């Protein structure tokens, strides 16, 4: 069959290209680029830490800071907040004669 022969011929010619791959000269600036990259690396740049690791550390620091702020805020708020229920409790205690003075007077 003509088509079958043509196809085989094309396959053979394509496969033959594998045997004819010529080496390509490297770019003239390759060695220079390598030396420059090496100089940058040795020049004390920050080590190439992965972006994912940096994000993870930043996230942990942010979380820790948030926790500290929450605790500090809760601590400073507690004093102010406590005065409200404390005043109400004092008032209640006086109404029902449950203050320390009332207790001591009974004794």
């Amino acid at each position, binding site marked *: 069959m003509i088509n079958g022969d043509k196809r085989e011929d*094309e*396959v053979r010619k*394509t496969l033959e290209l594998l045997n004819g*791959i010529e080496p390509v000269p490297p770019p003239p600036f390759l060695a220079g680029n390598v030396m420059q*990259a090496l100089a940058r690396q040795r020049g004390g740049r920050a080590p190439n830490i992965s972006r994912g690791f940096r994000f993870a550390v930043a996230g942990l620091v942010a979380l820790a800071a948030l926790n500290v702020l929450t605790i500090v805020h809760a601590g400073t708020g507690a004093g102010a907040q406590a005065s409200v229920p404390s005043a109400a409790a004092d008032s209640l205690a006086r109404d029902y004669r449950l203050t320390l003075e009332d207790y001591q007077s009974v004794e």
Partner: protein
Amino acid sequence: MEDRELIQEVISGNTSAFRSLVEEYQGRVFNACLNVLHDREDAEDVAQEVFIEVFNSLRTFRGDSKLSTWIYRIAVSKSLDLVRWKKRKKRFAVVQSLFDPDAGEPEDRDRSGHPGIRLEEKERRAVLFDTIDRLAENQRAALLLYCADGLSYKEISEVLRISVPAVESLIFRARTTLKKKLNDYYTDNL
């Protein structure tokens, strides 16, 4: 300078010695990368990375193989890493294109295959390398190291860290698969 001397000089921080190493091996490294990637720009980038890796890892070179074998191994490994990365990127781009039809790589790079093949064979070259791209990684690496880099079975076995019979088997399967895929291609396109 002998390899052993060169290695000692590079490890001790002699940058001139490292430059000599780069100049000696740049042709082989560049072509090894080009054979796997068949894209000049990618091969340049990866070749650069290979030499940086060589510099950083030379202390770990135990000398149980030739220096050239060790360097080839790094070159093939980094080239295949890029191939895998591009495949993942391509898969993501398919999803991305559903939301942004304009997204994607600019099409001005010549992707018709290896520049080491005659220009008049450009179309056939594109078909060949497109088909090679679809081979399993180890078959692709073995076939190209043999046909394009001209390494012996023994050298390939050292680069890929497999036995010589395994290399023979990989190359045989690569050729068989290549032939079959090309047959299918030309059946549909003649």
